[in-house]
């Protein structure tokens, strides 16, 4: 998505109308990003709000040589990570090991059929926070485990383990969904 240079300049000048235009252009996509990192929509909207405040506050630092959308996305992801770190300090999540099979995942050549996006999003949001963060950073943002370990303050092995468990969980859930679907038909 491209954004008019005038809008960016308007935002730099602090013009509320330009800010609103920018927000309208990017908010839906960025909320999608935030929802992947959060456990529910309400939390995602909080992150989105905080992220956009940062966007407008630091938009003067944006260098036009890069993608503006990518810049906003990085801010949103960083805000989501900050939010996760804050929450993890006060709330140590309890991983429900029952939902995560401890058995080793078996590499399969199974072709996964398209799943409804809303359902997929809900499955990701149901992941424990740590798993969800690793999954997002690895799959969507393209970070390596070494980088993820630095970002989240965990070991590289933990990152790998959490990614593996997240995948396993999603795989199980999708298989359940397929079974239900087959039963219906």
């Amino acid at each position, binding site marked *: 998505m491209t954004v008019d240079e005038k809008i960016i300049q308007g935002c730099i000048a*602090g013009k*509320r109308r330009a*800010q*609103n235009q920018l*927000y309208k252009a990017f*908010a*839906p*996509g960025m*909320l*999608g*990003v935030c*929802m*992947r990192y959060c456990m529910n*929509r309400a939390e995602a*909207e909080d992150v*989105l*709000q905080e992220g*956009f*405040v940062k966007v*407008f*506050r630091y938009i003067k630092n944006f260098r036009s040589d890069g993608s503006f959308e990518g810049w906003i996305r990085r801010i949103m992801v960083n805000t989501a990570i900050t939010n996760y770190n804050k929450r993890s300090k006060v709330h140590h999540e309890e991983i429900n090991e029952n939902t995560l099979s401890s058995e080793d*995942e*078996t*590499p*399969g*050549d*199974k*072709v*996964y059929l*398209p*799943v409804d*996006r809303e359902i*997929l*999003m809900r499955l*990701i949001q149901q992941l424990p926070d740590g798993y969800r963060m690793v*999954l997002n950073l690895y*799959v*969507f943002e393209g970070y390596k485990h070494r980088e993820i370990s630095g970002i989240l303050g965990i070991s590289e092995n933990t990152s790998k383990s959490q*990614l*593996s468990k997240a*995948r396993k969980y*999603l*795989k199980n859930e999708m298989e359940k969904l397929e079974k239900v679907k087959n039963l219906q038909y």
Partner: protein
Amino acid sequence: MEEGFNNIDDLLRNSLDDYQAQPSAKVWKAVSRSLFFSGMGKIIILISGIAVLSVAAYLYWGYSNVGETSGSNVEATEIGRTQNEDMASSETAVEGQNQTLGKEEGIYYENAGLSENDVTTNNNNLSGKPDHDFGSPQVEDVPLAEISTTDKTGEVNDVIVTTMVSASVASNVTIQTNTSQKVYPGLPRLSEESPMERMAIKTLDANYLFYQYNPIGNINERTQFKGLSGFPDHDYGRAKLFSYGVYVSPEVIFMNDEAKTRKLQLNFDAVTNYKPTKDFYLQGGLGIGVSQDDGRYNVDYEQYDSVGYYLEVNSYTIDPVTGKPVFKTSIENVYDTVAYNKLSLTGNRYTYLRLSGFMGYRVHYAKSFSVFVKGGLTYSILVNSYEPNPEFSNGDALNLKITKETAQRINDTWQASVGVGFNCRLSNSVTLTGEPMFNYYLRPVYERGYNAKNPYSLGLKLGLLFKF
């Protein structure tokens, strides 16, 4: 191991990478609010709050006099401009002319509806008597400004705005037009050529409403007003000028006691000025004053302490040479309960609600600078006292007794103040003011018995006045 699950990764990316959801409206509101509060918003809120309060006060107490001339900015050609929008919106026909005035502005500038024929008085909207009656002023017509306009025939006429109607026009006011003179009712003729008289015209302009349409060849029309129902019920001398201000005023209070102690006070006041005349004004204010004072506490306590010593003889020997005894002694301290007294000082803080009323008179002005003398009374009510306890820590102290020496502040007091105000007009609506003030307390700030003399103070009020 990871490669085996790449299809899941692909599925996730393909499904959710461009996932979009519409955020609720509250998100933008929150973003907008955060941005507002993080920047100049706080200042804007403060100013807006003051502005809203001021406008509310203005609407409540005053009536907007559009043609205010205090700034002396009204040009001679604007003299005929209506002072009252109600008047402007009323239809008036001039005898000998079928004239319909503009609804808003341009009573005489834009005479598109003017006809050279049939000037007939027809005041459809001017019915009933106004509530006020200032008598029936004799109004004569005066030439004020010549403006070219085009009539229906396309000919250029000279429209001379001359007819003058007192703002306090009573019913059945007869207005005579005269294109060669400037006479205000009850006043000698004024000429625009004289600077002083021109200034007088400008001043009078605030109180009079007048216009004249004088096409060529039709000079002495008579216009009869059958009452001006469009006029407001109140008179025009009221609500001449309201202005609003905020002051901060540090003050040094001389307690006028034997110790010649001095205290500091800082006042924050919001004021409303009412200026019925150009030079005289009344000022009412509401504010907070924060005063510092020492808290004095007498701390009496006893402590088991050394009061001296004596030498205890432990043994003695006889010096073989001198034959005298040589004593071996040791020092033995003597302890007893000793009474101590200590003065402990604390920093007390007293907050007063201030209600003030002042009168001021302008004694000098030049350009944007003016000097006032002012005086008034301030009533202060003690609304909060902060008196921390004295800090005393001595684990060996016995029979500790702390006596408060600080006199009790009385709950309310009056101050009489006189001072000089120096105003510097920064713009048409903002004036910077500095006012050295001498304040005399009509009652002592402390309860009787401690300091019978009344204190006085010197302060400097610094503020901004806003005229909307």
